[in-house]
């Protein structure tokens, strides 16, 4: 897996300029979908950060007179069975979903990188043990493992992040391991060794930076899965507990009682989830196209 020389790629593709704004606009033009995905993601991040300002009501405050109100000027997306404003809950829900999504992706990826690096670079029994562990973890589908882990750890925000992070480890570890194995054979590693560099230093200073590209691609691809898994866990009632506004749990409450009488409770949280994941997927696809053309397609 060669390091990508971006400038030469661009020139080969016929770019006229390789600097600054032109580069950017060229990128955007070439990967329009990815740009849209990025915009969507940025919007959600901003919503999460500015939740207190954009959300018009406190997402937790109950109002018995406004229970199950349809969308109106007062409540843009209606209210739920507690009288809580749906718009505010969706905006604040962005915080939760992004926290869980990003948190578990980061956690899972970092541990996965360490495991994959150690496994690929050190070989021997370390490799064997880690391989078996990743085998085991991969034998269970993501949702099942996350379900069992939240059941085991108990429903709370940090536990959900851990529960979703763990199934990510094997996928990341596998890719990083393969990458490391390939890189290990390259001449510059041999050269470093012959000069007397320690294994660890080689691993950290030379091998790791070159695994960054596939790692970023992988992580962005996983982000969508983690958001969906958190939504599924909360929908099943085994994820984020009350009273945090999780999009998935907003759907589980509405499903039971109000499919007929309050459809806005079903439609809007689902739209939020789909849009967030869609943006992530679009962006992830484009990123993969840019950083790792071998995987293009």
């Amino acid at each position, binding site marked *: 897996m060669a390091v990508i020389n971006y400038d030469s790629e661009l020139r080969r593709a016929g770019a006229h300029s390789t600097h600054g704004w032109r580069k950017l606009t060229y990128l955007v033009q070439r990967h329009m*979908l990815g740009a849209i995905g990025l915009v969507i993601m940025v919007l959600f991040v901003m919503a999460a950060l500015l939740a207190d300002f954009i959300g018009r009501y406190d997402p937790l405050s109950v109002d018995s007179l406004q229970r199950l109100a349809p969308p109106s000027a007062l409540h843009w997306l209606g209210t739920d069975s507690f009288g809580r404003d749906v718009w505010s809950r969706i905006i604040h829900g962005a915080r939760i979903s992004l926290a869980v999504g990003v948190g578990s992706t980061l956690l899972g990826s970092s541990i996965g990188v360490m495991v994959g690096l150690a496994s690929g670079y050190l070989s021997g029994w370390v490799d064997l043990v880690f391989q*078996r*562990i990743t*085998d*085991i973890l991969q*034998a*269970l*589908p*993501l*949702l*099942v493992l996350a*379900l*069992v*882990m939240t*059941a*085991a*750890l*108990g429903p709370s925000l940090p536990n959900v992040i851990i529960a979703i992070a763990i199934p990510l480890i094997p996928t990341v570890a596998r890719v990083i391991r393969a990458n490391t194995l390939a890189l290990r054979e390259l001449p510059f590693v041999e050269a470093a060794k012959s000069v007397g560099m320690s294994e660890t230093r080689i691993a950290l200073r030379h091998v790791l930076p070159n695994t960054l590209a596939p790692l970023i691609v992988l992580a962005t691809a996983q982000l*969508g899965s983690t958001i*969906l*898994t958190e*939504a*599924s866990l909360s*929908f*099943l*009632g*085994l994820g984020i507990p009350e009273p945090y506004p999780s999009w*998935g749990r907003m*759907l589980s409450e509405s*499903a039971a009682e109000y*499919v*007929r009488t309050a*459809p806005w409770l*079903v*439609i809007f949280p*689902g739209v939020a*989830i*789909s*849009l967030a*994941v*869609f943006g992530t*997927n*679009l962006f992830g*696809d484009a990123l993969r196209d840019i950083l790792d053309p071998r995987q293009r*397609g």
Partner: protein
Amino acid sequence: MFAYIVRRLILMLVTLFGISVIIFVLLRIVPGNIVDILFDAAGFVDQADKANLEKELGLDQPIFVQYLKWIGGLLHGDLGYSYVSEKPALQEILPRIPITARLAALALLFSAAIGIPLGVISAVKQGTRLDYALRVVSLSGLSLPSFWLGLLILMASVAMFGTMPIFNPNPRTWTEAFAIYCVPAMAVGFRSAALVMRITRSSMLEILRQDYIRTARAKGASESSVNYHHALKNAVLPVITIIGIEAAFLIGGLIVTETVFNIPGVARFLVEAIRWRDYPIVQNLVMLIALVVVVTNFTVDMLYAAIDPRIRYTD
């Protein structure tokens, strides 16, 4: 070849063993067990009765004794007893499997029937607007939570037909059977279809670039025969991989869809058992799922090795 099979089989067993240990330990980390839940359901908490019940269920023994009991039983086909229904776990799990199997098969069929052709078209027409549109559609399919899709379908059925499909183990008419099985299968299969489409597309593209396609073209084979003859034949390999990957993917979708449509299958059973802390059921179900995934992967690998000899001698 034989050595390869044996090696893989041993690996499979090691993996399954590892899972059994992990699941067993995980379920017992958190304080609180089935006894707490049973008593809470009765609205009444008497400590002496609780202690008695724990002893009766064997919950007061050290963990690894309980583990050995379970594994020992497993090897004779005794899966233990469900705490909730007090029937043998096997008796509870077995009848639910066909229902989920039917749903899974239908979903696989649906996803293959839609995903493969669309993936091929997308690959062949790469770069065109059609390709673009199909890629967006497949991406959005992957972005929809399957339980939300299920909820939307329920809403639509209420709005259009005034009723929702209610599960009936013995459907009397074909329309009823269709409503009960195919509707949820489509909800599950939608995401899988998107996944299948993407993978088919990328592997078709990979194939189309291969040297031997160029050679075939150079030899003068017509465009269509190149596409549908050589390319597809060699795209069979990745399709087998797809089925392998899908197995894991589907199970997650089945869990939430069975919950939404209130279908008494094995996937929904897992969630119920977790809620009730019915350990025997949860343990066995997780092992079952792991078995299905691992065996599917094994079969896929065997098929792969059988078809492409290059794979056989590396690990």
